[in-house]
């Protein structure tokens, strides 16, 4: 049975923890709003880009001279997994869900006898994957210094990935990130970026192309990769804050419950102590 003093200390310490989690929740809420705005603002560009590329891919894609970024290398041997996670913890299952999805995919590919290479973005995922897949790491992008995700960050990652593709280091690249749906729900997503896939590529043959369709497509595909990475980074950023917000909300509520519980125990022991003292006094008086 802990003493009254111990209980009092414990209540105080849980109260302090609650203050911290509450503050973190509010910070995450503010950051979430900014991240959502950024994701919102980036949407028009990404949507236009995708629709134009889908149209071009629809008309050029079938021809023999289609760019490698669209048609693939013809092989399906080496897979690059780009795993995007956060730099900071305390965000619930955010990192674990991405890592779980990436791990499942990697195991599946390995079972099929394919070669797997992993590029990690954000150190949390790297830490979780290191034990099982450390041998497959080919690079890491540190986002720790990045306060606000900008297009230049995505461009840098895209350049790295494209350089490796040009050097023939892999055949297929897949992005792993969390798609933001709401504060309580983020969907771990695997998205193939190389070779590019488009849903419903309606051929937009009504356009004149200047220069040729092929030249435009060759120019756009690398930009498309950068845009997809940028979108993924933004979605991931919003998801991270959303996940942190709900995790911290839970933590705050748990702390509140714990405080109620300890306060009840504290009051009960205090009353027990008083009762005991009274009995001692009364029985002492009776003995006289």
């Amino acid at each position, binding site marked *: 049975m802990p003493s009254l003093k111990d209980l009092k200390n414990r209540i105080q310490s849980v109260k302090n923890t609650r203050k911290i989690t509450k503050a973190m929740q509010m910070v995450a809420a503010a950051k979430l709003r900014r991240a959502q705005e*950024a994701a919102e*603002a*980036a949407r*028009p*560009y*990404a949507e*236009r*880009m995708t629709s*134009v590329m889908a149209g071009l891919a629809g008309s050029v894609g079938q021809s023999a001279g289609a760019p490698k970024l669209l048609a693939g290398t013809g092989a399906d041997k080496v897979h690059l997994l780009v795993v995007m996670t956060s730099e900071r913890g305390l965000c619930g299952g955010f990192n674990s869900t991405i890592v779980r999805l990436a791990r499942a995919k990697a195991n599946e590919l390995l079972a099929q006898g394919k070669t797997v290479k992993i590029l990690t973005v954000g150190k949390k995922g790297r830490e979780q994957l290191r034990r099982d897949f450390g041998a497959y790491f080919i690079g890491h992008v540190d986002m720790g210094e990045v306060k606000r995700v*900008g*297009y230049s960050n*995505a461009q840098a990652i895209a350049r790295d990935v494209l350089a490796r593709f*040009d050097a023939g280091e892999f055949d297929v690249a897949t992005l792993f990130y969390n798609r933001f749906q709401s504060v309580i729900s983020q969907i771990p997503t695997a998205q193939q970026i190389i070779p590019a896939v488009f849903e419903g590529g309606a051929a937009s043959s*009504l*356009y*004149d*192309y*200047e*220069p040729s369709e092929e*030249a*435009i497509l060759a*120019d*756009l595909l690398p*930009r498309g990769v*950068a*845009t997809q990475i*940028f979108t993924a980074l933004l979605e991931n950023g919003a998801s991270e804050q959303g996940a942190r917000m709900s995790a911290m909300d839970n933590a705050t509520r748990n702390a509140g419950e714990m405080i109620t519980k300890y306060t009840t125990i504290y009051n009960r022991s205090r009353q027990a102590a008083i009762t005991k003292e009274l009995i001692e006094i009364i029985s002492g008086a009776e003995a006289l």
Partner: protein
Amino acid sequence: MAGTLQFDLVNPERRLASVAATEVQIPGADGDLTAMEGHAPTITTLRPGILRALTVEGVKSYVVTGGFAEISASGVSVLAEGAIPVEEATGTVLDAILAEARSLAAIALPQDKDAADKAVADVVALRDAVLAH
């Protein structure tokens, strides 16, 4: 008064402009072109240059560093990789763009060398045009 067309300028991070314009001068990869109402639907890539739009709010100029433009009879959407209003394009900003183009040209693969060198030349021309402005 000539008819207007919807002019949208977006970069990867945000929408920079969305106004009605009477004409939009675009630095296309194969040469400059001006889009007005009723233009044939065209998609063109951009070279580094100055994009000028005669809008209902006055003339707006932007320094763009690549991307593409989608022109239809009723609107122009410019998806620029980098775009800044010409007033904000100071010597230091342009020098940074030029330095980046040069560094890309320096590491370009042989088959991309010509394109990268052309990009550098375009940026140099762009820089002179803006500073002379």
